[in-house]
């Protein structure tokens, strides 16, 4: 019988010291996420103004009760309606989601064999391999993306190599295409996919694969019916760690991508810095957070079910 431990009521069981320790992350999140986010929401409900700050209304505490009423009366959802109405934003969101989804799949296809090979490498070699995966972080992300410009430009390394091998006889345009964006994204996010995958594959009990073989399952098939299902938590974590930041990615599409369809990060940047339209930019950001909550919620739900199933 699976026995459930008798639990005491956690809230009352915690001592003051323990409560303080638990409170630290919450205070951190309130101070550095919730409060700024509320401010962003507020800005998104304002309208642009040629002023300092560049939006109105501004809460005037000195105005007393009337000031607060004026302030609340000045808020509106107009910016959200603008975003929903204008193709520019909708297409931008869709483009971001598409790019994130495609590159997450590509990251899985590249990351899985890599992580699998690392997990199967001799035990002594594994720390070195993990270090090699993390090594690119020692150089600035921006510099590494600039390096890709060099590689992908018309007389860059990639074209030179392809010409030399003979795969092409004319230099191809890589830079300022979606292909370049995908190359840059897969390159940049690979460690975030490989590390959680490696962590779950490395834990895999070798005897389970022997048991599968013993029961008549060939090795290649055991990879799909045993290894992959057991690596799912790592797979989910890796996919989320890549998908979420890629949706909001700015640097890679901005430096490597073309000008045809901007990803939402670029749109956001344009609104803030080029158009100086803080309210619309804030609304774009709020909608983005809302969109990204969905995969996180799904993942959380699956995790909870997983944990509940194990009890």
């Amino acid at each position: 019988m699976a026995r459930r431990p008798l639990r005491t009521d956690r809230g009352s069981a915690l001592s003051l010291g323990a409560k303080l320790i638990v409170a630290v992350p919450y205070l951190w999140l309130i101070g550095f996420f919730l409060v700024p986010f509320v401010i962003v929401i507020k800005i998104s409900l304002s309208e642009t103004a040629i002023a300092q700050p560049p939006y109105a209304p501004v809460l005037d505490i000195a105005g007393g009760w009337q000031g607060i009423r004026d302030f609340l009366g000045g808020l509106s959802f107009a910016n959200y309606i603008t975003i929903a109405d204008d193709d520019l934003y909708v297409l931008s969101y869709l483009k971001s989601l598409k790019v994130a989804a495609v590159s997450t799949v590509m990251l899985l296809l590249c990351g899985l064999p890599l992580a699998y090979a690392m997990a199967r490498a001799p035990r002594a070699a594994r720390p070195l391999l993990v270090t090699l995966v993390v090594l690119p972080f020692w150089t600035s992300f921006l510099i590494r993306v600039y390096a890709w410009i060099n590689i992908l430009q018309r007389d860059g390394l990639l074209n030179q190599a392809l010409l030399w091998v003979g795969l092409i006889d004319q230099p191809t345009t890589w830079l300022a295409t979606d292909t370049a964006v995908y190359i840059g994204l897969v390159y940049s996010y690979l460690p975030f996919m490989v590390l959680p995958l490696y962590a779950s594959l490395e834990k895999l009990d070798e005897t389970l694969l022997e048991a599968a073989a013993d029961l008549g399952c060939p090795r290649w098939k055991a990879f799909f019916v045993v290894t992959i299902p057991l690596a799912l938590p790592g797979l989910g974590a890796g996919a989320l760690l890549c998908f979420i930041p890629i949706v909001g990615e700015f640097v890679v599409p901005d430096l490597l991508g073309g000008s045809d369809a901007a990803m939402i990060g670029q749109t956001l940047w344009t609104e803030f810095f080029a158009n100086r339209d803080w309210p619309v930019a804030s609304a774009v950001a709020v909608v983005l957070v809302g969109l990204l909550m969905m995969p996180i919620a799904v993942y959380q739900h699956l995790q909870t079910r997983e944990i509940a199933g194990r009890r």
Partner: protein
Amino acid sequence: MRRGFAPWSDPTAAPLVRFENISKRFGDIAAVDRLSLDVYRNEFFALLGPSGCGKTTLLRLLAGFEMPDEGRVLLDGCDIAAMPPHRRPVNMMFQSYALFPHLSVAGNIAFGLRQDRLARAAISARVDEMLALVKLEGFGGRRPDQLSGGQRQRVALARSLAKRPQVLLLDEPMAALDKKLREETQFELMDLQARLGLTFVIVTHDQEEAMTVAHRIAVMNKGRIVQAAPPADIYEQPRSRWVAEFVGDINLIEGVVLESGAGEVVIRDKVGRRYRVAANIAVGSQIFVALRPEKIRILAAPAPPDAPNAMHGRIWDMGYLGGVSIYKVRLDDGSIVKASVANIARRTGQAIGADDEVWLSWLPDAAVVLAS
């Protein structure tokens, strides 16, 4: 255990499993060293030995997880060296059970059947049959980590039996169970083996377990089989000092044969004591007399003059184990002899206590003479 089941003494019987002069080395260490062994159909065979003796390697050679460096493994007369593990008609129950954590109990049991692409109905019928066999009806939907250790062990057993393997390999199957459950499981395992008519090969370091379940035991040491025989023969007729000492408790007395004849020899030990032992061995041989503690009688009064192999000493140490009591008796020359007495009657006090003067005696056929 069936009486008269002894295919190993029938020269015409064909073995189901045959290891032929097989060796397996890991680096410089020979885990299995030029070993030959036959296991017969319907046999419950135990591989017994200390850790690192090569017993698990031998099992893995049969399952196909290891490849022999030399020699052949034959199953039903066919060399299975080239056969990968997933094609071999043998199944293994792993020491860690190796249950798939992402599958339910039923999913685990069905895993092997699915590989054979059996029809859905046939699979579920077999799963139910297996669950009933190991008395886990109604547990099919549970996940392995929702089960107790004993239940997991039974799922592992059911899973390895589901495909009706020609040989079931059991690698320390009861190592993780507590003593009581282990004993129960041993009898259940014997019952299953007899009912299903399968061939079982079990690896264990627990001699009681091997003696309980097996028709025959192969005692292994350093990659070789030192003796393969039915449990009673291993215990009563050990072929070497090593076997005698590994299996059960034993007193070993070093000596030389003085007289020989009429199936009995006279042996003199290092301090000049003489013993009469039933054996045929040449005069002058340097030998060991191996004597089990329970075959020695302890007397609180001087032994009668006609008592064979009488010795005198004092109780040096004793242990009350419930069913039996173990006495360590210090003889006059200072050597220690272990003797055990079955506690037949309920007593409030011990008849023989610490430091008591005692006389020991044993029959000539109670001991075994070992040349090495």
